[in-house]
């Protein structure tokens, strides 16, 4: 019989994930594992985890990882990559981590053209701490620290990290994808693969921004969150390749 699908070995079999129903972290983590196996680089990969829900998979991932202080993943990745150029180094960060507290580290690593890959999970909300407003929270979207919804005049507008980094000369690859349907999941996997291949080819900084949902903190069920992504999130954060050099 032809083998059509098998579980990635990069995830430990005897562990369970701590993710909520409908969370797409588990989808993206699986895709990353599959890509690492397909590129045959698991044995030389180091994952730099951000703080927040993105760190919840440290228990069950089967390969090397380090937890960075909140926002500092790109700085930690810089230190690993500069001293170990043969290691594939990627960061895995949420929107609070990459686009708020870590903005200086993110922009500066991109501007230096560090030969690292960033997987940036944008769900418009702080997950682990309980649904506070993120730099990517949509206008009108409620958060536990914006109970009447985000207002432009008070909170400013959602930040578009791909477009912000596109103003810099150095980045090699900036792309925005989603995981809200099977076609987009496949595009996300291809984007991750390209980001990692870029690093193996020494092309410099690549960032994959993945628009995902957070049913728990959005206050809706998993299916409704898919609609919300399609109808709201992707209107604000259009998908596509922003930079490919």
């Amino acid at each position, binding site marked *: 019989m032809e083998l059509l699908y098998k579980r990635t*070995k*990069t995830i430990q079999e005897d562990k369970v994930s701590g993710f909520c129903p409908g969370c797409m972290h588990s989808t993206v983590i699986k895709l990353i594992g599959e890509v690492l196996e397909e590129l045959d*680089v*698991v*044995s*030389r*990969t*180091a994952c*730099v985890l951000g703080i927040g829900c993105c760190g919840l998979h*440290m*228990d069950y*991932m*089967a*390969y*090397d*990882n*380090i*937890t*960075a*202080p909140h926002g*500092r993943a790109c*700085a*930690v*990745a*810089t*230190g*690993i990559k*500069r*001293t*170990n150029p043969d*290691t*594939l180094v990627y960061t895995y960060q949420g929107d609070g981590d990459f686009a708020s507290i870590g903005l*200086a*580290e993110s922009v*500066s690593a991109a501007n*230096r053209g560090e030969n690292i890959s960033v997987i940036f999970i944008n769900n418009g909300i702080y997950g682990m701490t309980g649904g506070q407003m993120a730099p990517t929270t949509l206008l009108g979207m409620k958060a536990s620290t914006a109970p009447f919804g985000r207002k432009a005049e008070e909170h400013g507008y959602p930040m578009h990290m791909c477009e912000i980094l596109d103003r810099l000369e150095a980045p090699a690859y900036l792309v925005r994808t989603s995981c809200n349907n099977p076609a987009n999941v496949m595009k996300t996997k291809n984007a991750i693969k390209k980001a990692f291949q870029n690093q193996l080819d020494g092309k410099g900084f690549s960032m994959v921004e993945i628009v995902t949902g957070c049913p728990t903190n959005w206050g809706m069920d998993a299916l409704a969150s898919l609609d919300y992504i399609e109808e709201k999130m992707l209107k604000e954060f259009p998908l596509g390749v922003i930079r490919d050099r």
Partner: protein
Amino acid sequence: MARVFMKGCEAMAEAAVRAGCRFFAGYPITPQNEIPEYMSRRLPEVGGHFVQGESEVASVNMVYGAASAGTRAMTSSSSPGIALKSEGISYCAAARIPIVYINVARGGPGVGSIQPAQMDYMQATKASGNGGFEMRVFAPSTVQEAVDFTYRAFDLADADRNPVLILADGVIGTMIEPVELPAQRSEEEVAAIKAGKRSWACIGHSLDEPRAWIQPGNWSTAAMQQCNEDAAALYASWEPEWESKWLDDADVVITAYGISARIAESAAALLRKEGIKVGLVRPITVHPFPFAAYEAIDYGKVKAVLDVEMSIPAQFVKDVETAVKGRCPIETCLCSGGNIMSREAIVDSVRRIMEGK
């Protein structure tokens, strides 16, 4: 060995390179700029890497990354910048990552003054970040000691898997003195040190091997407590280092660390020539603190212990009080704001004690 005439900052940087440091990240701040500047020229010569970070916060985390990947790594700053580094230092301590960092201290608090001071004592010895971790903290009083301690710090950091702090100051950092530099470790030795860390270095392992898992914390409270108990056992194993002089017949004992200690020693030497019996206790490690050093004082004879430090309010004196345990009065001779301790001020303080004023 031939002595060379080197500025403190550059000499410490060279000592780090000779000890096998192959990664440095830092951010400009006076009076320690000669360390990153020197490293930016020197590290590429030995196949190392220098990064000017976008901030102190980024720099210390770059060092956390490099050291977690097995490379001997260092950062440096001066007081306000050291405060910013506390996040990364705490992560290194929690994850048991060996790094070395240097504080070329200046006046504080706030932006303070760019001139030398000893106002980071409490921060350096008691709480260099959140969470109650401890570090070995060395206080050099000459450029030679700054070199020797920096060189040793890398071995100690590796042996402990813990950060080590060199608590220097703006005088040690900017003055030039003759030094004998330690031997340069060969590329083979440096490579062997790194290879020795392979089992835990976050550089990639095959799925058949245990993964490297750098954890600056733990989801499990039981595991976290165990980490803290292990760390406490390590801290308890450290031996303090100190230097004592002329205690046998002392009527006054001066105690000081770092730059103040050498000035105190010159004051004591001058006073002894006049027949005034002055002793000296100088902690070399300010953490762990050498409480035992103060047991050699003859409290039946001594009129007072004189605490000399470049900090107002006095900070070092708190540990001295703990060591002296009320067995004699403790007087202070202080300066601050970037003013440097003078021999004359110490001599006057001793005279006042001797005259009972």
